[in-house]
């Protein structure tokens, strides 16, 4: 018995007097009880029957010998593996997008572009970049790729989650790149700038993800590409409102941003639910 247990035993209710006996009796009883408990604690590990124990261990040894150890990759390995599954076209498009983001930001800086113009250009660019990043997820829902791409370790749901995570990471990189290089062109500050960029991005992602499952049939791939382009074009909507980027409309932007975030979360939840249920997505 270690010191901690001894201490706990001393503090435990076993040693607390409970009835109305005299102090002397209580002390005596507690002492007897204490000794008894202590001896019980020492004796709780009795001698095992060695032959039975050895028989048991022999069965365990046999099971260990026949066991086939299957290697499960870690989360990091899964992320990397899924990234490697993407075809070179997809990766080239994503790399091109990153490069274009840097060039665009540099060009806007050199031109000292107007804040409004730079926001519109950057937000549309971010929307297209987001859709290209999500093309990894889209591939799973087109041409019956899901059943081909399911790995030994991951099911479709886990794969979609990992690809969405990868797309999110890439989008964040592009967003921070744009915000870092062109954010200062906007007079309303970085927070407002991020909001202007994120609202079209969130709404277009909601539409795009919805179309992934809605357009799942033979010609799904083409329709998804069209949906991606359409969603990107929808990001131009603030152009039709002259004062859309003024401070007075910030509460509207916040509301739209919040609604977009909620809808996006609901859409992702819905997709994962559909995969789980397997009703709307017949893999075979």
């Amino acid at each position, binding site marked *: 018995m270690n010191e901690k247990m001894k201490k706990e035993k001393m503090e435990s209710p076993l040693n607390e007097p409970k009835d109305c006996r005299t102090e002397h009796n209580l002390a005596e009883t507690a002492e007897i009880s204490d000794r008894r408990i202590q001896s019980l604690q020492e004796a709780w590990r009795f001698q095992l029957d060695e032959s039975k124990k050895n028989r048991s261990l022999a069965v365990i040894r046999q099971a260990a010998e026949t066991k086939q*150890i299957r290697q499960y990759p870690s989360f990091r390995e899964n992320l990397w593996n899924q990234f490697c599954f993407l075809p070179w076209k997809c990766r080239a498009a994503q790399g091109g997008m990153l490069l274009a983001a840097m060039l665009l930001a540099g060009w806007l800086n050199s031109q000292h572009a107007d804040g409004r113009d730079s926001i519109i250009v950057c937000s549309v660019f971010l929307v297209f970049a987001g859709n290209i990043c999500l093309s990894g997820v889209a591939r799973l829902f087109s041409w019956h790729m899901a059943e081909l791409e399911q790995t030994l370790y991951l099911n479709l749901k886990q794969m979609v989650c990992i690809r969405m995570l990868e797309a999110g990471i890439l989008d964040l990189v592009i967003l921070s790149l744009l915000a870092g290089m062109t954010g200062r062109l906007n007079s309303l500050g970085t927070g407002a700038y991020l909001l202007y960029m994120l609202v079209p991005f969130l709404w277009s992602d909601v539409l795009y993800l919805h179309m992934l499952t809605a357009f799942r049939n033979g010609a799904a791939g083409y329709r998804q590409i069209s949906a991606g382009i359409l969603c990107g074009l929808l990001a131009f909507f603030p152009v039709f409102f002259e004062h859309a980027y003024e401070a007075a409309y910030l509460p509207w932007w916040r509301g739209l941003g919040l609604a977009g975030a909620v809808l996006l979360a609901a859409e992702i939840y819905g997709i994962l639910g559909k995969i789980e249920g397997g009703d709307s997505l017949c893999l075979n």
Partner: protein
Amino acid sequence: MEDRELIRRIQDGQKQYLNEIAEKYYDNIYYFCCYQTGSREDAYDLAQETFLRFIRYVDRYQYRNLKGYLLTIAMNLCRNYACGSGKAPVLSESFESEQGGRGEEEAQVSCGREYEERENSLLLAAALRRLPDIQREAVILHYFYGYKNREISRMTGASYSAVKSRVRQGLEKLQQLLNREDFYE
């Protein structure tokens, strides 16, 4: 070798370390099963089954607290045993008979200390059997294995306050039982 390293090697395909884990923790698991079920005989089977289950799922196991994980498996097996066997939580015949059977012939040759220890383990098993299952497992894990209430809460899936109260009530009952002169009669 530390448990973390053992698990890493096993998951890398070195299966021989499964035996090392079994040898290292067999006694601990056996005692737990023994006091939880009150049967010395069945405890061997339950301890064996604990390790067989561990071996079955070892490739998916993520190391945290190996002994706690094994005890959790054993705990679930003991719960199933209690439900499946339909044995009432009374003093176990097998525990008693094994002790008694040996006692007859060995009592004369064994020294007084050994005899007292055997008596005590029998007494403890009998007292523990009188506790409700959930209190018994909490008391065993806390008092004999030295786990903190928070750890027991994680192992059993019960809330921290529930575990705390189980341990307190279990110890109180144990004290009452052991203080009764006629307890074992």
